[in-house]
């Protein structure tokens, strides 16, 4: 019984969604692809280049810098997972009190705007007056202040650590809710069979949260590669191109050099790289779900 009234409702209600999809997702995407075939300055006339932006980028000295920075930065996902697991497992224990309070504190860094967190770490890691440098020197771990964001070896790891510090609560919240769904009786049963703490983790906990872990890894891999507020605040992609994660490089071309054609070209590489990094985990997830 598909009455015309219902049809009209569907059309009317889907209109905003359709407009959104066409005008804000697909049209800009196609326009961007068109732009990537041009030298397209911020103001002024575009010039047709064909695939020159793509070949230029592949041949550029900074191409491998950017790929390396992107790979290291994506390790942030792993660090986030480690902290999230520790926090979620601790909060799951029946003997821990004030759970709501601790959970509230733990999501502070995720709730704050990323640029705010970036500015805070810019201060804490400042070589002249930052707390971190101060204590590292006071304890004799380092002798000279380290310019964390200006030295090639440090910069890409520092932005990765700061991003990890900011974004782990996202994983934490999802893993925690998966943990909370495990009935306590399963742990008791495992204990009756003589399983120790580690065995209980492997036999009971891990299988129950495996899917949740895969989901958050997939989501965070994608998000982390696009969420570049703090690294951009901390290093701006430098020194040189050392911390130019693909999305930062894209932003640099657009925001700093005003080279919009090249910016979107880099963006296309970001799409490919995101997909490549996600694919193995998506495949694992598919297999898991298929088996269940």
């Amino acid at each position, binding site marked *: 019984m598909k009455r015309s009234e219902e049809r009209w409702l569907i059309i009317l209600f889907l209109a905003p969604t359709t407009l959104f999809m066409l005008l804000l997702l697909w049209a800009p995407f196609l326009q961007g692809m068109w*732009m990537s075939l041009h030298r397209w300055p911020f103001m002024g006339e575009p010039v047709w280049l064909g695939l020159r932006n793509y070949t230029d980028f592949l041949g550029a000295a900074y191409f491998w810098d950017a790929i390396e920075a992107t790979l290291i930065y994506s390790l942030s996902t792993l660090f986030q997972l480690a902290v999230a697991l520790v926090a979620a497992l601790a909060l799951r224990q029946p003997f821990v009190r004030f759970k709501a309070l601790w959970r509230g504190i733990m999501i502070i860094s995720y709730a704050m705007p990323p640029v705010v967190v970036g500015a805070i770490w810019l201060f804490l890691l400042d070589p002249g007056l930052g707390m971190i440098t101060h204590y590292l020197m006071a304890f004799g771990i380092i002798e000279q202040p380290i310019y964390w964001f200006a030295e090639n070896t440090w910069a890409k790891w520092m932005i990765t650590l700061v991003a990890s510090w900011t974004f782990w609560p996202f994983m934490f919240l999802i893993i925690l809710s998966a943990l909370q769904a495990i009935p306590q009786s399963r742990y008791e049963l495992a204990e009756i069979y003589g399983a120790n703490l580690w065995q209980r983790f492997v036999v009971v906990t891990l299988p129950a949260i495996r899917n949740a872990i895969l989901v958050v890894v997939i989501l965070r891999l994608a998000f982390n590669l696009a969420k570049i507020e703090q690294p951009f605040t901390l290093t701006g992609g430098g020194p040189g191109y050392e911390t130019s994660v693909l999305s930062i490089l894209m932003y640099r071309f657009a925001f700093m050099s005003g080279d919009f054609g090249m910016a979107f070209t880099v963006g296309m590489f970001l799409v490919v790289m995101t997909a490549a990094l996600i694919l193995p985990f998506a495949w694992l997830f598919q297999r898991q779900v298929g088996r269940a």
Partner: protein
Amino acid sequence: MTDDRSSPGQKALGHGGLALVLALVLIPYVYVIVTAFKPAEEIYDATWLPQRISFDAWIEVFEVNRFHLYLWNSLVAGAGSAALAILIAVPGAYIFARKEFRFREPFFYMIVGTLIFPFILLIVPITITWIRIGLFDTFIGLWLAFQIFAVPYSMWILRGYFAGLPKNLEEAAMVYGCTQFQAFYRVMLPLAKPVIVSVLFLAFLQGWSDFLFSNMLTTGDGPRTASVAIYASTAGGERVDWQVLMVMTLLTGVPPVVLYMLAQKHLAKTFAAT
């Protein structure tokens, strides 16, 4: 719920892990708060207790930096974006959840799939287009651009919620003489109020926090938001006034945190239902 049969080793691990994570999170913030109340001459001492408490930086932030204007811009940017996201996502999600039509699933995933798409690359064409059609440096331009990330997850959450409501609600309402539209407006919409509030909240915070789009799409003369102002004061090249910067971070960072804490229970409840 007390369970004292946990072994001492398990307790030590649990409490140790908890303490470690809390220290990792809290120590930096405590230091930021201390710094915001330090007098300028003490900034180089990495002390935890300033000799005297100073409000100079707080006064400077409002009187010199006029930071309240940027905060206001963030508020308007976030609120407008949240309202627009609801207008787009609620009707769409309702249809996707409860009506049958051809290509429904592919259509839905074409929108929600963008959740894992690196949407920041769309900033490139959008900047150029906004300049061309006069939306550059306007609130409307920001609101529209923010939809790129607000709509997909709003749609996802709302559809899940609508789909979970009892099957025959609309039909029952129509038996009582409602039209299709009234069934949505009088029955479904009130039922969805809690989840709509959650989505408004998330979309607002996303707009409030955004940097990448706002930085690209506004200038110092337009609706520059607090995040962009913070970035601008670190990237100017001149010496950074750290106390002032820390006050700015607190003013911009604390409201979302407070909102999150207040909303925690409500969010957990609505997301448990989807």
